[in-house]
C-alpha cells in the first residue's frame, strides 16, 4: 500500500495558519463541516498535507482517519503541492489510444516522480488529466502552460530538457 505522504517538507506562513484557524472556527458548529473546511484549506495551501489535516481533525473533533478518508475519496483534493512547472498529460480517449499511457510513463521517468506527486525540489509535478478538448492534436501534453501535440514518446525527453535548465 502506498504511503501517499508528500516528499516536500510542509511550510506555512503565519497568515495561512491564521486563515485556517478562522476557517475551522467558522464551520466548527455545523454538521458535515469537513467538506467546506477541506475545500477552503486546499485554497489556502494549494494542497492538504498531513499537518493541515491534523489541524482540521483536532479543530473539528474528528479523527485524522476520518479526515483522510474524505480527502482520499475525492480526486479534487490533493495530498501533494503542485510543482512550479505543472505537467498535464491528457488521458482522454483519443490521447489514450494514441499512446498517452506511454507518454505519461516517459514523463514520470524523466522528472522522477509519479502522477499526482511532486519532485523533491518542488520544481515539477505531473498529473494524468481528463480530456482537455484537443483531440485533433492527440496525444497532447501541457508543460507549464505550453501545449505540445501530435507527440511521440521519444520526443518527451527533448521537450522537458528545455524546462530543466
Amino acid at each position, binding site marked *: 500500500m502506498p504511503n501517499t505522504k508528500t516528499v516536500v517538507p510542509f511550510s506555512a506562513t503565519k497568515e495561512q495558519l491564521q486563515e485556517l484557524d478562522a476557517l475551522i472556527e467558522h464551520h466548527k458548529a455545523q454538521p458535515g463541516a469537513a467538506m467546506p473546511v477541506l475545500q477552503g484549506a486546499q485554497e489556502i495551501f494549494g494542497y492538504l498535507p*498531513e499537518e493541515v489535516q491534523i489541524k482540521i481533525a483536532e479543530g473539528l473533533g474528528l479523527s485524522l*482517519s476520518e479526515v483522510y478518508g474524505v480527502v482520499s*475519496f475525492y480526486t479534487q483534493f490533493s495530498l501533494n503541492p503542485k510543482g512550479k512547472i505543472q505537467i498535464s498529460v491528457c488521458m482522454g480517449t483519443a490521447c489514450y489510444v494514441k499512446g498517452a499511457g506511454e507518454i505519461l510513463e516517459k514523463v514520470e521517468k524523466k522528472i522522477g516522480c509519479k502522477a499526482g506527486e511532486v519532485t523533491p525540489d518542488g520544481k515539477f509535478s505531473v498529473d494524468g488529466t481528463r480530456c482537455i478538448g484537443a483531440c485533433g492534436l492527440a496525444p497532447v501534453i501541457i508543460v507549464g502552460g505550453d501545449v505540445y501535440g501530435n507527440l511521440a514518446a521519444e520526443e518527451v525527453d527533448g521537450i522537458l530538457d528545455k524546462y530543466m535548465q
Partner: protein
Amino acid sequence: MVNLKINDTPVQVPDGTTILEAARTVGIEIPTLCYMKKINAIGACRICVVEVKGARSLVAACVYPVSDGMEVQTNSPAVAKARRTTLELVLSNHRMDCLTCLRNQNCELQKLAKDFGIQEIRFNCDNSEPQIEDSAIHLVRDNSKCILCRRCVAVCKEEQSVAVIGPNDRGAETHISCAFDRDLSEVPCVSCGQCTAVCPTAALSERDQSQEVFDALADPKKHVVVGAAPSVRVTLGECFDVPIGSNIQGKMYAALKRLGFDKVFDVNVTADLTITEEANELVSRIKNGGTLPLITSCSPGWIQFCEQYYPDFIPNLSSCKSPQQMFGAMMKTWYAQNANVAPEDVFVVTIMPCTAKKVESRREGTSAVKGLFDVDVALTTREFSRMIAQAGIMFKDLPDEEPDNDFSGATGAGVIFGATGGVMEASLRTAVETITGKELPSVDFTDVRGVEGIKEAVYDVGDLKVRVAVASGISNARKLLELVRSGERQYEFIEIMGCPGGCVNGGGQPIQPQSVRNFTDLRADRAKALYDMDKDLPLRKSHENPLIKAIYKDYLGEPGGHKAHEILHTKYAVKEKYRL
C-alpha cells in the same frame, strides 16, 4: 404493535422493529455481514435483502422497519438469486486460502458460502497475494481477506471513539487502513482488539504467539508457569461449544496441566494483590491529600488511551501494575526465589481476554527484575483455545482439576475483576474496611454492577463521602473524563475498562458471530458467571486472602511499602498522538 406476515406466517412485533428482528421472532435467521445492532446499521452489504410486497426493489432487512400489513418473503427465488450474486461478488476478491486460514470454520463468509452452496464464482478478480500489515505488537491485518463490511471501523469509532481505521480511497481501490495508509504502529491505536473480535473473516486477527509457548514448553531449560485472567474461565468454553456464560474453571486448569506447564497458577491471585495495593493507594491519597480522583490502571487499552489522548489524567492513574504484570513480577521474584529457579529461566505465560495485554507485556522500564520482561508471552483466550485443540485435548470431557497451590486460591473480589464495576467493587470492599476499621455488613456494592456504559454511586465511609464512577468502553471513558475535566462531576475514585462491559467482552475473547452478538448480550451473560462464582466463595475480600497476607508478611512488607513499590508499581508517560 405492528401486524405483518413473514413467509405467510403472521407476526406481531413492536413498532420500530426491523424486518431482521421480526423474522427472528418466528425462527428465521436472515443472513447479515455488515450489520451490528446499534453500532453499524448501514444496509451496505446487501446479504440481508428480502422481498417486500409492493416495494420497488429488494430491501435491506437489517435497517428496514416493519409496518402494518406488510408481507415479507425472506427466501423467494429473487431473494436467493440476489444473495448468491452478492456473495459471489464478495468472494470474487477474497483470498480464499480457507484451509490454512486462522479463521477456518469460524468465518462468517465461509459459513455463508457453505449455507448457500456456492461452488463456482462467475467473477474472478485476481487477489492471490496476502496484504499483511503486522507493524503492531497485538494484531495483524490482511486486507486480501477484507470484505469492506466496516464492522471494525464502526467498533473503533462508535464503541471506542478512537477511529484510527477507516475506508481510504474510492471505488475498486477502497481499502480499510489508517490515515495516510500509515502502519497501525504509527497511529494512536489503543490496542483494545475490539476490531479483531468483530471481523467476520481473518482480515483482522490477534498476533498468534501460541508457537512461542509450545517452544518454551518443549525447552527443558525453561520453567514455564502460567496463569489465566479472571474472565477467561467464563469465556473459554465458548471455543468448545459450551454455552455462553458457563464457568469452566476446573476444565481450564486441567487443560493447562495437560499442555505440560510446569506450574499452573492463577492471575486471580494477583487481582487480589492489585486490590490490596490499589485500595492502599486510594486510602493514602484520600488521607494525605493526593491527586484525586484515583483512576484504575488494570486495563492496558485504557492506559494507552490515557497516555495518548488524555495525558493530563496521568497523575490520576493508579501506579499499581495490572494483575497480569503483578503476576509476572511475582513469578520472577518471589516465586523464583521460593522455587530456587533463576529468574531468567522462569518463563511466564498469561492467558488474557485482551490483545492490549501483549503490548502491556512489552512496556519498557517497569520490570521487577532488570533486563527481563515480567511476562514473556501474553496469549489471548483464542490462542489458548487453539493450543488445546492442537494438543488433542478433549476439552468437554476433561475433569475439573485444581491449580498448583503455591500461587492460587483467590477471593471473590479477585474473580469479579473481569467485569465492568468489578475492580471498583473489589477495591471498595477493602478500602472501606481499611478506612472505617469495621467489618462491612454486606460486601455487595450492586450500584456499580451491570453493563451500562457509565455508572455512579456515593458511599458513606465513616465521616467521608466517597463518590465513585465506573466507565467501560473508551467512548464512555472519554465522556466521563470530559465531565471530570470540566468540573461538572467530582469523584474520589474511578474505574475505567477499555472494552465495553469490561474484560468479559475483551478483544481477545472467543469469536462470536454477529448473528449471535446481535441477539445476545455477551457482556451480561459472561459477567453473570463471574458474579455467581463470587457469591459462592467463602472469602470475598482481597485483604482476607491468606496467601496475600502471607506474601506481605514474609516477602513484600507493607502494602505500598518500598519492596511492594519496586515489584508491583509502574510508571506512565505522555505519548505523542501524531507521529509525523
